């Protein structure tokens, strides 16, 4: 199995609660880059602060042109699309919202899929729309691994359900199993 270089996580309605649980369950020795796209962050500094209280790893806002760092949670700023450049750096865009969303999970996942290929894990959590489904399909086509929260387990089932229907998943698990699963996939 290829080494996992990055994890991208997408969520919407109910996202901050789910993220707090998931990020709190990650192994603090994790060297992987973790990139989060949440529609709920009208103020990302606030979201970063909330997540930092729960996360085992440092949480920062993703900055344009900055290198993507391992062992760190990097959160998409509000009202910009977040993209991954070939040189493992972040880029931002104010292109039109995609499906009413900016940042768009699809945009992040698709650009990450191109750069990381099979060294990528993509995670879809709770949400009330279909963003992320097409992006997850890109990740899988490029050889990456898809993890989707069980719709019954999610605060809002629409997003994981849409992802399962369009892209399918390598693992469809409840939130409390997800942290240990990711730790296993990244650290063995």
């Amino acid at each position, binding site marked *: 199995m290829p080494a996992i270089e990055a994890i991208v996580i997408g969520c919407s309605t109910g996202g901050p609660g789910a993220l707090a649980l998931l990020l709190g369950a990650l192994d603090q020795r994790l060297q992987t880059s973790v990139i989060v796209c949440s529609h709920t962050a009208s103020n990302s500094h606030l979201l970063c602060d909330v997540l930092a209280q729960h996360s085992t790893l440092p949480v920062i806002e993703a*900055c*344009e*042109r*900055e290198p993507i760092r391992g062992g760190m949670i990097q959160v998409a*700023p509000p009202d*910009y*699309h977040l*993209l*991954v*450049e*070939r040189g493992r750096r972040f*880029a*931002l*865009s*104010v*292109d*039109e919202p*995609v*499906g009413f969303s900016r940042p*768009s999970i*699809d*945009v992040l*996942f*698709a*650009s990450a*899929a*191109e750069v990381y*290929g099979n060294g990528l894990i993509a995670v879809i959590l709770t949400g009330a729309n*279909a963003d992320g489904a*097409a*992006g997850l*399909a*890109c990740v899988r*086509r*490029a*050889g990456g691994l898809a993890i989707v929260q069980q719709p019954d387990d999610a605060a809002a089932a629409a997003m994981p359900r849409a992802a399962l229907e369009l892209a399918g998943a390598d693992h469809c698990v409840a939130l409390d199993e997800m942290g240990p699963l990711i730790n296993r996939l990244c650290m063995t």
Partner: protein
Amino acid sequence: MNPVALNLSGIDPELDDIELNLFVSAMRQRHGYDFAQYAPASLKRRVYQLVEQHHTGNISTLTARLLHDPTFLPQVLEGLSVPVSDMFRDPPVFRALREQVLPALAAHPRLTIWQAGCARGQEIYSLAILLEEAGLYDRCQIYATDFNDAALRQAREGIYPAREAQGWSRNYQAAGGTCSLADYYSARYDFIKLDHRLRRNVVFADHNLVTDAVFCEAQLVLCRNVLIYFSNALQNHVLAMFRDSLVPGGFLCLGLRESLALAPAARDFVAVDSALRLFRRAGPEPSPVDHAGH
């Protein structure tokens, strides 16, 4: 489902890269537009969107049409530029312009303001309103430039969907507006039209930051969310161009999430409010009286 234009081959990004390079060469050699120094991820995404929109199936077929169909270029340019903004987008920035920048500029008897990348003009009308309310408009020459001619035409018209009015009014108030935004537009059917008097001192002009040079000496340059699409080298080149355009002490206003950390030309600017990405060109400020005399 919304067309997301994610990637084309999905499994062969290297092939996409080759095709993208050929597309960029065609744009430059055939039409004189240079996108080689654009940040690749967003450029690629927009080219994919063009492929979907025009049903060409792949980038190579898009490139062939670009080379052989003389009517196609405007549509491609429209697709490659980002005419997305709002009036008073990021209200704290416009509040800072109102409360900090305009009072400092009021000492100048004549003012030149350049907005680079004005797109459909939302921000130029916002600025014009600030200048009117500060009593400075009549001594201003305002240049609003973009390389997208279709967007420039729309900017000149100042007509926008009525559904935007509510959010823009909120932005205007949050930016310290004391009147009502509705005082500056008339509503008809599903559209609002900005008062044409707001553009009496505005020149809308075609200007490409990649290939064109400085054309004015300005006291204020606005360029918001344009440099984010440029490579580090091009970002630095354009930043140096803004420096050369600005008088010492002149103001530069960038987008809220733009980073100058990798641009050597940033050394020629000092931050007025770094969180709002508001800067001044370093160097001794010429006295406004001397300046007017020459």
